[in-house]
């Protein structure tokens, strides 16, 4: 037997280049079709749950499971995110030290625009999520960035979502670079990771409404429309990027960083999948 310690370090990675070249057709930049993907996902869920109207998917698992829907509807009478929206409104309307405010950074003064995010920003060559735009606005005006996962950024995002309720999601893919980001997000969604070797799709496509311990995973269709979310488990409001990290840890995978390129592309893909559905954030979930 050879002593192959030398292989441990780099050699196994040498294969990486050749393998990534061999991507299967239909999922390359040339052949990926976001609209076809979106329609295919809708058909999947309509076949699986024929009684559920498309519009209801914004309510996640509560569109599919009547027992938890009853509890959720009662919670929504006094939504736990109510106070956060109020605080978010105050934060949104408080001027920066230089006199400017968030309204100066966003179209329509930042009101009723949630449905346009994430957006492909050509000038930056990347996907910009709403929270990224919020922090970019802060930095452009001499303020410090807010943390990505909870607290003030979630409250501001919640207020902005709230003003956009019932607006129809309309994420655009204007060019090939944006399409590449979409494809990257799509790949992330369907890729197994972590020690438990699970992908987002395992729980949220095939495994939607299939009991995993005491929980029912929500459907991938309409998955992101209600963010940011007041999660009972957290006892507070958190962003979608926060939830991504949590889910990755749940499958025992080292989480990717909030607002990293991979996770922004994932959010881009997921939101595109919800095009045609309405904004209903912020939301309350178990």
């Amino acid at each position, binding site marked *: 037997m050879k002593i192959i310690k030398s292989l441990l370090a780099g050699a196994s990675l040498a294969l990486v280049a050749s393998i990534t070249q061999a991507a299967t057709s239909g999922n390359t930049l040339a052949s990926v079709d976001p609209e076809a993907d979106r329609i295919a996902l809708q058909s999947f869920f309509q076949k699986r749950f024929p009684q559920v109207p498309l519009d209801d998917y914004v309510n996640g698992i509560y569109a599919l499971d009547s027992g938890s829907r009853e509890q959720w509807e*009662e919670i929504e009478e*006094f939504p*736990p995110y109510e*106070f956060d929206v109020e605080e978010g409104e105050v934060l949104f309307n408080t001027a920066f030290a230089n006199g400017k405010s968030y309204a100066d950074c966003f179209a329509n003064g930042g009101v009723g625009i949630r449905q346009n995010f994430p957006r492909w920003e050509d000038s930056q060559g990347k996907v910009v999520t709403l929270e990224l735009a919020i922090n970019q606005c802060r930095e452009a005006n001499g303020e410090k960035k807010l943390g990505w996962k909870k607290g003030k950024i979630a409250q501001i995002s919640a207020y902005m979502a709230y003003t956009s309720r019932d607006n129809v999601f309309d994420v655009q893919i204007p060019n090939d670079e944006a399409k590449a980001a979409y494809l990257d997000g799509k790949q992330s969604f369907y890729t197994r990771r972590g020690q438990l070797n699970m992908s987002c799709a395992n729980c949220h496509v095939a495994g939607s409404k299939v009991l995993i311990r005491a929980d029912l995973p929500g459907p991938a269709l309409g998955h992101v429309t209600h963010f940011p979310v007041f999660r009972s488990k957290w006892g507070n409001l958190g962003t979608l990027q926060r939830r991504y990290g949590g889910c990755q840890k749940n499958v025992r995978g080292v989480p990717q960083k909030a607002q990293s390129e991979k996770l922004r592309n994932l959010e881009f893909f997921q939101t595109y999948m919800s095009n045609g559905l309405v904004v209903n954030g912020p939301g309350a979930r178990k």
Partner: protein
Amino acid sequence: MAKGILRAKAKAKGDNTVVKIMAKHAMETGNRKDKSGQKIPAKFIQTLNVSYNGKTVMETNLGTAISKNPYLAFTFVGGAKGDELQMTWTENTGASATETAKIK
């Protein structure tokens, strides 16, 4: 007038009235520690009583076992649309207040 800490919804349903209240309150037990290791002082709602026409319709002793932003819901016999409920709360610190809610 300062906004109270109680958000209430009261609905007349036949002979009964259904009441739902959410209190905006940290409900600090006094056992949590802040970043520097100091205990955060206890600050929690001790009692929350609701009365209608001078009569108590619900009495609660909350305390440290109740978590942040407590939510209570109850039904009482009586009550009519347009009437008012008196909700009085007291805190361990001694603070207290009475807020009102209209039955719809």
